[in-house]
């Protein structure tokens, strides 16, 4: 047998790992009790189960809602469609909400789960907040100094781990109920969108429902607007000041 160069060997192995391609088998030792194909299957199974298990740990509520079999089916398909691009497994699963949204459009059995994509976004945000960098307390002196120096041109940022979500479904309620193992039978759209801020406090990821002013302020900060531009979004400066004070107090902002 000709020597197989490493690059070719890895390329063939990788194809076999993720698809049904089996060119690599020609180069794999096997015996009667444990043939080459079964040996390769050990790796296929492990790779799938590692990814499915990670998705399950990041999206436990989605897993519970869809049931074990259906969740694993979807997770396996996601694994093929979205291979991991980071050695850090905690970063895997970022596009699961998008994938679920596509499935909801395509599959009739998911038609009653219109809220699921937003719920998955909430779960991802909570996961991200848990693994984000630490935040320093908001530096009021630096903020005041910059306001004096640059006035309205000052920009502030969202603290690490902050994620803003908006949903026409009561996703926070669904998430909460599932933490207590209480499922909800029928989920309907609500009259007023839920506005949610996910953040981390004392090493725990959590969320809070916020009012429209806080949401508007934080969305503007997220869009990298200057304080002057942010102020223009508010009719009433009291509303802006109140929202700003609230966010600073919650350590949701950084300068």
């Amino acid at each position, binding site marked *: *047998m*000709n*020597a*197989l*160069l*490493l*690059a070719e*060997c*890895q*390329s063939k*192995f*990788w194809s076999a*790992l993720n698809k049904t391609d089996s060119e690599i088998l020609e*180069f*794999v*030792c*096997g015996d009667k*009790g*444990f043939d*080459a194909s*079964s*040996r*390769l299957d*050990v*790796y296929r199974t*492990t*790779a799938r189960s*590692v*990814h499915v298990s*990670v998705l399950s740990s990041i999206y436990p509520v989605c897993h519970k809602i869809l049931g074990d079999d259906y969740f694993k089916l979807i997770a396996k398909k996601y694994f093929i469609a979205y*291979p*991991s*691009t*980071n*050695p*850090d*497994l*905690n970063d*895997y699963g970022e596009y699961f909400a998008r994938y679920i949204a596509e499935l909801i459009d395509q599959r009739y059995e998911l038609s009653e789960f219109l809220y699921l994509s937003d719920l998955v976004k909430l779960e991802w945000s909570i996961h991200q907040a*848990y*693994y*984000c*960098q*630490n*935040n320093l307390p908001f530096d009021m002196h630096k903020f005041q100094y910059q306001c004096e120096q640059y006035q309205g041109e000052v920009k502030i940022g969202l603290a*690490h781990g902050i994620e803003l979500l908006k949903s026409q479904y009561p996703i926070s309620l669904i998430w909460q109920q599932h933490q207590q193992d209480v499922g909800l039978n029928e989920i309907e759209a609500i009259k007023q969108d839920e506005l949610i801020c996910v953040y*981390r406090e004392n*090493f*725990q990821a959590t969320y809070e429902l916020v009012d429209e002013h806080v949401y508007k302020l934080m969305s503007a900060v997220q869009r990298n607007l200057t304080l002057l531009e942010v102020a223009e979004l508010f009719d009433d400066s009291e509303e802006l000041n109140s929202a700003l004070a609230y966010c600073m107090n919650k350590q949701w902002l950084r300068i």
Partner: protein
Amino acid sequence: MSARNSNIVKTQQALQGVGVGLRAPHVNQILSTRPHLDWFELLADNHMVEGGWARQQAIEISNLYPVTMHCVGMSIGSVDPINYEYLDKVKSLARDVKPKLISDHLCWTSLHSHYSHDLLPLPYTEEVLKHLANRISIIQDYLDVQIAVENISAYLTYKHSCIDEVDFINQLAETADCLILFDINNVYVNQKNSKQNADDYIDQINLNRIAEIHLAGFEDKGHYYLDAHNNPVSEPVWDLFRRLMLRNNSIPTLIEWDHEIPEFQKLFDEAKKALSIKACVESKVREGESCERIAAC
């Protein structure tokens, strides 16, 4: 190929005795009860983010015990470019916990910038030996420290492999001037899976390069053993450990348990068993006992 860089920090054999792999469910208990253990091994990838509770745990443990960092993401054997972003994270964690040793595996885990998150086997050829030695040298230079590479458990071997695994890893350690993290359970698992002779492996591994020993449990799948780390260390693996201890009983040893993680006490008991075997071998060797009697330790 220049495998040796005189500037890298040689890992000191500062570790002693027996350690346990740190697992999240045990951290609070360890921090509050401070069990008498020689050191802990951090699964580095679980603590890479510069912040959060996982990083804080690693720092707090490292303030109380010597620690080592065991990585899974260097993808040392891959033909992909080296992932320096990952190595920067390794460096950052090392700054925070000051590990006695940094290790990864003799395998590849990625291709075309996609990650399998599994330890994939390499063929043992001259080409691969050169490839690995070169990459290990680059990694050691970048991290500015000598690293250890671990022999992996494998479920397949390649027809074009032309070097025995033990010779391969011995040669690699010399060429790359790296250390070996010697996993005895993996040697035993591979004996079943690929008919590699475990006794010969134990007798031939270069002791001068072994920085640490791993002991773990496997799962018997019938026609093969799965390196599942979900069981106590098996008796045949303890026997291999005794056999190695006869050659050198001072190599620091670690108990690993990754799935179906039991109460901490269970790992602690396994660590005590490893320690008692080490002590028993030492005393019998000192008394000039025969190998048969030492094997009864």
